[in-house]
C-alpha cells in the first residue's frame, strides 16, 4: 500500500505552499521483480522478531487428529524440532521458524527433513503450505534436507538454509515462489553417493529437486548455490570448487514420474556447477514427458564453476527429454560485479546440441567460455 502525504504550510498572511511525498506501508515485494534476500524473506516479510513467536519445543506431528483440535493453520510459532505432515486437508504454516533440533549421532538424524510431507495415503489436495517463514537446521547433517515429500504445497517467501538439499519434491506439484535459498551444506561422507566415480562420498546438493511433477512452478526465487562455510565439509569442497560453487539451483530429474508443464522463471541464480539441470538421458525412465516448458527471465548473477578450465554450463538437458530449445529464452547475466563486465546484462547464448540428436545421445547446453 502506498501512503501519500501532502503537507501544506500556511504563513501569517494566509499564503500557502505544499509538497507531497509517499512511502510504502506493508510489503512492496513483487514476485519475480524483487530479489529475495534475508531482509525481505522469512520473518522479514512482516518484520516479526523471533521473540514474538510462541515456542513449540520438540517435533510437531500434524495429523488429522491434531488438525481436528488445532485447526488448519499455525502462525507465529517457533518449532524447535521437526515437522511431519500427514493431514487429510491443507495446512499452512506462516510467519514462523522451524529450526529442527539436536541429536546424538551424526548421520542419523531423528527425521530426514525439517518439513516432511511424504505420504501417499493422504488426498492429493492435502498439502502443507509454508509461507513467510525461516527454515534451518540447528544441527546440520548429511541426511537432513529442508523440505521433502509428496505433499508439499506452496512454498513462498521463506528463508531456507543449512540443509543438504534445500527442497526435495517427491512427485507433488512444486509451487516455489520468492524464496531466499542459500547456504546449503556440503558433505564428503554421503553414503548415498559413496560409489560416485569422480568424487566418492560427496553430497549432491540442489536448491530444489523434483523427481517428477505436473505444472511445477519455480518463480522469483534467489538461489545461492554456494556451500555454507560453517557446516559440513566446506573446506574439502572449496579446495577444488572455489567459494563452494557446487550443485544445481534447480534439478529436474524424471526418475519416478514425468515432468510436464514446468515453468522456471525470473529467478536469481548464484554459483553452482550446473545451475539449471533438466531431464537428460541417464536420469531416469520418465524424462520424456512431451511437456510444455518455459525457462525464461532467469538472471545468472555469478558464474557457475567451470567444467573444464573455462567452460561454464548454465542450463542443460537431454535431447528429446526436456524443453524444446525455443522454450529456453530471455535468460540473462546479472548486472553485478560478480559477472565479468563484458557479460553484465547480456542475454545468455542459445543452447547448442552436444552429441548426436538421438533419444540416447546428445544434450542441449547453454554455455559460455569465461
Amino acid at each position, binding site marked *: 500500500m502506498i501512503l501519500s502525504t501532502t503537507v501544506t*504550510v*500556511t*504563513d*501569517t498572511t494566509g*499564503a*500557502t505552499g505544499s509538497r507531497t511525498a509517499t512511502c510504502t*506501508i*506493508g510489503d512492496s515485494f513483487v514476485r519475480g521483480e524483487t530479489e529475495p534476500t534475508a531482509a525481505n524473506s522469512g520473518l522479514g516479510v512482516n518484520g516479526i522478531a523471533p521473540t514474538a513467536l510462541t515456542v513449540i519445543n520438540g517435533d510437531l506431528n500434524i495429523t488429522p487428529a491434531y488438525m481436528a483440535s488445532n485447526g488448519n493453520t499455525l502462525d507465529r510459532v517457533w518449532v524447535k524440532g521437526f515437522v511431519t505432515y500427514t493431514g487429510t486437508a491443507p495446512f499452512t504454516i506462516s510467519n514462523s521458524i522451524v529450526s529442527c533440533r539436536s541429536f546424538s549421532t551424526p548421520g542419523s538424524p531423528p527425521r530426514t527433513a525439517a518439513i516432511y510431507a511424504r505420504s501417499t495415503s493422504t488426498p492429493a489436495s492435502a498439502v502443507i503450505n509454508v509461507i513467510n517463514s525461516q527454515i534451518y537446521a540447528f544441527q546440520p547433517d548429511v541426511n537432513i534436507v529442508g523440505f521433502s515429500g509428496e505433499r508439499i504445497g506452496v512454498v513462498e517467501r521463506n528463508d531456507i538454509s543449512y540443509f543438504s538439499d534445500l527442497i526435495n519434491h517427491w512427485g507433488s506439484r512444486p509451487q516455489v515462489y520468492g524464496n531466499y535459498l542459500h547456504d546449503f551444506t556440503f558433505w564428503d561422507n554421503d553414503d548415498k553417493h559413496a560409489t560416485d566415480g569422480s568424487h566418492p562420498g560427496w553430497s549432491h546438493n540442489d536448491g530444489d529437486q523434483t523427481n517428477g511433477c505436473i505444472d511445477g512452478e519455480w518463480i522469483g526465487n534467489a538461489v545461492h548455490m554456494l556451500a555454507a562455510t560453517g557446516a559440513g565439509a566446506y573446506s574439502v569442497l572449496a579446495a577444488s570448487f572455489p567459494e563452494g560453487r557446487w550443485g544445481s539451483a534447480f534439478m529436474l530429474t524424471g526418475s519416478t514420474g514425468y515432468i510436464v508443464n514446468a515453468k522456471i522463471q525470473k529467478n536469481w541464480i548464484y554459483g553452482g556447477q550446473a545451475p539449471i539441470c533438466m531431464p537428460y538421458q541417464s536420469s531416469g525412465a520418465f524424462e520424456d514427458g512431451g511437456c510444455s516448458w518455459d525457462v525464461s527471465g532467469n538472471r545468472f548473477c555469478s558464474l557457475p564453476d567451470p567444467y573444464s578450465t573455462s567452460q561454464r554450463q548454465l542450463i542443460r538437458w537431454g535431447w528429446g527429454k526436456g524443453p524444446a530449445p525455443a522454450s529456453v529464452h530471455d535468460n540473462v547475466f546479472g548486472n553485478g560485479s560478480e559477472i565479468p563486465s563484458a557479460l553484465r546484462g547480456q542475454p545468455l547464448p542459445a543452447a547448442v546440441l552436444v552429441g548426436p540428436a538421438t533419444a540416447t545421445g546428445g544434450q542441449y547446453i547453454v554455455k559460455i567460455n569465461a
Partner: protein
Amino acid sequence: MGPSEHRFQVKENEMSAPVVTSVLYGKSNYQPGELMTLTVNHTDVDRKVLPTVVTVTDTTGATGSLSGSVIIDGAASVVPVSTPAVAWTLVAATLNQSVFTGTAP
C-alpha cells in the same frame, strides 16, 4: 539628477508564499501499526526573526532593558494530510522545520 533617480526601491506590499522544500519519512517502508516520523522542511523568503530590545531610561540616566524577538511572516500552520488517513502529531518545531509522528495504517 532628477528626484526619480534618487528614489529608493520601495518593497511592494506583496509577501512571498512559503515553500515546502522537503517532506521526509523516517524510512521508505513501514509495517502497519508501526510509528512513523515525518519531517517537513519549509522556508519563506519573507520570514525572519526580528530581534527587539526595549530600553527604559529613568530621570537619573539609569537604564534597564528587556530583549525579545518576533517572527515576521512565520508559519501559521503546518498541516500534513495523508491518504489513507494518518493522525499526525507535531512533536518538534523550529522556524523552518516541523517533525510529526503517526501510526502507519
